[in-house]
C-alpha cells in the first residue's frame, strides 16, 4: 500500500484515460483539437469527474506546464467577489505567453454557492477578460447559477456514475495497492459513497490503513463510525430524547474541536433527519425549522445559538406529533 491520497494518485491525467462521461469527454477532446473553448459550466453531483475532466482538458491543451495556465479557485474559500475579481485580474492580465493557446483557464469550483449579486458581478468580469481568459464554473446545481451566466457558458451536465463503473474503479485500485477487498467490503464502499467516486476511494484507503490489507464491510462501517455524520446522528438522537445539554455538548465539539463549518453541519443534520424513520408530519415540521436556521446562517447569525435552537425543537416536535396521532 502506498501513501499520498489515492484519490489523487489514480485521478486520470488525460481525457483519453477517462472511462465515464463519454459524451462530455468527446466534446472536450474537440476543444483540445481546436485549441479553443467557450466558457464552461460543469454541473452534476459530487465525485463524478467534473474537476477531473477540466484538469485533464487543461493538461491535454497546454502540456506538462499546464499549471502555469490555469488558476483554481474555490468560491467557498474566497471571501467575496472582490477577492475573486482581483485574483482574476492579476491572473488574466498577463496573456498566455509561450503557448500556442492565446488564453488561460480560470476554474471556479462551488460557483453555485455564490450569491446572485456576486454572480452578476462575476458576469461582468467574465466579459471583460474573455479575450485572455476562459472561465470554467463548477457546481452541483445549474438552477443556482443565474441565467445570464448560463447563457454565456457551454453547459455540461454530468450524470451519476453507474454502479459497475464505481465498483470496477475501486476494484482496480485495490488490486494495484495490494488490498484484499472482499465482495461485502466493495458493496459497503459503494453504498456508503452514494456514487461519489472520491469518497469511495478515500473510504477504501482509510479502511486499508486501519485494517492492514484486508477490507470487509465491518472495516468500512468502523471507518464510517469515526467520521462526523455518525456524531451528527448521535447529537440528533439526544435532541429528540430531550437530552439538550448533552446534544449541545456534541454540537460544540463538532464546531470547535473538529472545526466543521456551520453550513456543513446543517447539511449533515438535514440529510440525517430526512433519512430517519419518523412520521412524515414530523419531517415536514423539522424541514421548516432547519430551513429557518439555514437562512439565518446565510444572514450572518452565530452558528451555535441558531443550531442549538434547532436541537431543542427536535424534542418538542416529536412530542407534538405524537400527541396529534
Amino acid at each position: 500500500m502506498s501513501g499520498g491520497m489515492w484519490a489523487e494518485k489514480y485521478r486520470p491525467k488525460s481525457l483519453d484515460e477517462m472511462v465515464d462521461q463519454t459524451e462530455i469527454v468527446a466534446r472536450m477532446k474537440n476543444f483540445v483539437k481546436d485549441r479553443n473553448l467557450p466558457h464552461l459550466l460543469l454541473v452534476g453531483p459530487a465525485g463524478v469527474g467534473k474537476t477531473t475532466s477540466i484538469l485533464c482538458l487543461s493538461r491535454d491543451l497546454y502540456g506538462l506546464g499546464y499549471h502555469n495556465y490555469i488558476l483554481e479557485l474555490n468560491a467557498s474559500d474566497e471571501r467575496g467577489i472582490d477577492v475573486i475579481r482581483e485574483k482574476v485580474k492579476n491572473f488574466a492580465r498577463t496573456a498566455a505567453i509561450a503557448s500556442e493557446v492565446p488564453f488561460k483557464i480560470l476554474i471556479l469550483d462551488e460557483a453555485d454557492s455564490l450569491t446572485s449579486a456576486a454572480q452578476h458581478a462575476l458576469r461582468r468580469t467574465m466579459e471583460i477578460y474573455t479575450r485572455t481568459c476562459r472561465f470554467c464554473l463548477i457546481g452541483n446545481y445549474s438552477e443556482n447559477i443565474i441565467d445570464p451566466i448560463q447563457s454565456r457558458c457551454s453547459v455540461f451536465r454530468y450524470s451519476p456514475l453507474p454502479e459497475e463503473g464505481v465498483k470496477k474503479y475501486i476494484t482496480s485500485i485495490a488490486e494495484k495497492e495490494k488490498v484484499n477487498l472482499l465482495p461485502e467490503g466493495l458493496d459497503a464502499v459503494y453504498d456508503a459513497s452514494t456514487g461519489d467516486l472520491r469518497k469511495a476511494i478515500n473510504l477504501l484507503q482509510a479502511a486499508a490503513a486501519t485494517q492492514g490489507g484486508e477490507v470487509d464491510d465491518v472495516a468500512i462501517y468502523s471507518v464510517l463510525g469515526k467520521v462526523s455524520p455518525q456524531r451528527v446522528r448521535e447529537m440528533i438522537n439526544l435532541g429528540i430524547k430531550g437530552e439538550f445539554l448533552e446534544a449541545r455538548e456534541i454540537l460544540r465539539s463538532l464546531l470547535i474541536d473538529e472545526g466543521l463549518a456551520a453550513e456543513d453541519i446543517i447539511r449533515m443534520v438535514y440529510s440525517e433527519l430526512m433519512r430517519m424513520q419518523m412520521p412524515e408530519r414530523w419531517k415536514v415540521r423539522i424541514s421548516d425549522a432547519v430551513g429557518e436556521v439555514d437562512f439565518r446562517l446565510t444572514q450572518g447569525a452565530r452558528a451555535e445559538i441558531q443550531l442549538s435552537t434547532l436541537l431543542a425543537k427536535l424534542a418538542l416536535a416529536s412530542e407534538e406529533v405524537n400527541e396529534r396521532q
Partner: protein
Amino acid sequence: MSANRLPWAVRFRPRIVADIADNKNAINELRLWLRTWEKGIPERRAVFLHGPPGTGKTSSVHVLAEELGFDLLEINASDYRTRTRMEELIGRATTQNVTIFGKRRLILFDEMEGVSGHEDMGGIAAISDIIKTTRVPVVLIATAIAEDNEEKFRPLRDKAQPIEYKPIPTIDIYTKLERIVRELKLNVTPEALEALAIHSGGDLRSAINDMESIARGKGAVTVEDVEGLGNRDKQEYTPIIIQNIFAAKTLQEARRTINQAYVDHEELFDWIYENLPIVLDDKHDLVEGLEALARADIYAKRVRSSSYRLQKYMFNAMTGGVALSRTRSEGFGLRRQVMTAAAKLGYPQNAFVFQETASGLIVKPVKYMGDSWKQINATFRGLGAVWVRSGNGWAIPYLRPPQLKWRYIRTYHSRRKLQSIAVKVAHKCHVSSNDAVSEIIPLLRLIYRDKAMAETTTTWLELEEDEVDWLRS
C-alpha cells in the same frame, strides 16, 4: 521616569504609522483628510474617529501629527467642563493656523464619550461651534458610539466626517505581544500569547496591560494565568445579574439588568446562553427561550450592519424574551444533570443526597466512595462543582460562566493547525477547505495510523512536523 518603569502600553506605543497594528484604511483616510488642509480649508473641518477601545485611534492621530508636522493641542475628558472652560483652553488656537514657531496646528478632542449631557453644559454645542469656524483641523475621538451616545453626538454628526476603527485582528495582537515578549525577554508560551490575544477581543491596549499585570515581577505567563484574568473581576456579580434576568416577571424588570451588568452585552448574552438550558428545564420553555435568544442574535447582527437604533429590540429579546418564556420550568435542570452524569458512571439516584441553597446545589455521597471518588469528581467538575472537604460534598453553583470562549482559547492552537492542514489538503485534492475539514481530514487521521502510508503522505502534502503530530493525536 526611565523607560523600563513606564507602563508597557505607553512604553511600546507606536511611533510611526507602520507600528500601528491595523486599521490601515482608517489611517489612510485620516491622512488624506489632513493633507487636504495643505490646499486650504476643506468642506468638512472635522473628522470623528469612532471604534472600540485599544484599536489605535489616539495613536494614529499622534503618529500622523508627527509625520505631517502638526503641532498637536490635545483636550481630554478631564478638561470637558463647560463652554467657558473649553474656550479658555483653546483660546485663539482655532483662528490662528500656525504657532509662533511656524508649525501648523491640529486640535484633538479625545475621549468624547466622557462628555456627559448634563454636567458638561454646552460642551457638545461649544465643540460644534468650534468646528463651524475653525481654521485648523479638528479631530474628535469616541469609543464605539453606543445607544445612548447616538443622540448626544447628533449635532456633530453632519459636520464631522466619520472614520470607523475596527477591533484589531487576533493575529496582529499576537504579533505585537510577541515583539514585546522578545524585547523584554519574557517567558510566555505561544498558547498563553494566543489566549491573551483572543481574550482582549481586539483591544491591543488591554492585551498589553493584561500581559504586564501577569508578567511584571515573575517574567512569565501561562494559559492558566490568562484564564484566571478573565474571571477575576467579573465572576462575582455576573451570576447575580443573570439570576435576576431569569427571575424577572416583567419585560421592564428584565431589561433593567442590562444597565446593572458590569460585563458588556455580548458577554451577558453568552452567560444567558450558557445557563438557559439549566434554568429552563421544560421542553416548551427551552424552545421559547432559545428562540428569543436566537432572535436577539439576529438583531445583534442587524445592529452592526445597519443601526444602533435596533439595539433595544436585541436587549428586549435577550432579557425579557428569555425571562418570560419561563412558565413551566421547575429549575431542577442542574439536579437532573448531576443525576444523569452520575447514572452514566453507574450510580443510582439514592447514592447521593441533594440539598438546595440560594446559589447552588450541595451534593453529598451517602457513603465513602473510595477510589471511585476521583472519577466522579472529574465528572462533576465538568458541571462546575467544587469539592468542599469540610462539608464532605460537592458545591455546584446554579449558574456557570460561559464555557465557549475558554473552549475556543484552549483549542485555538489546534484549530489553527487544522486550518493550515486544510489549506494544503484543499490545494492538493482540488476541494474547498470546508470539504477538506469535513470529508478528507477525518479519513486522513485514520490513514495516518499506517506508518508507511503516513510517511509518503506527509511528503506529498508537504506537511510540517507539528501538522503531522496533530493528525496523529
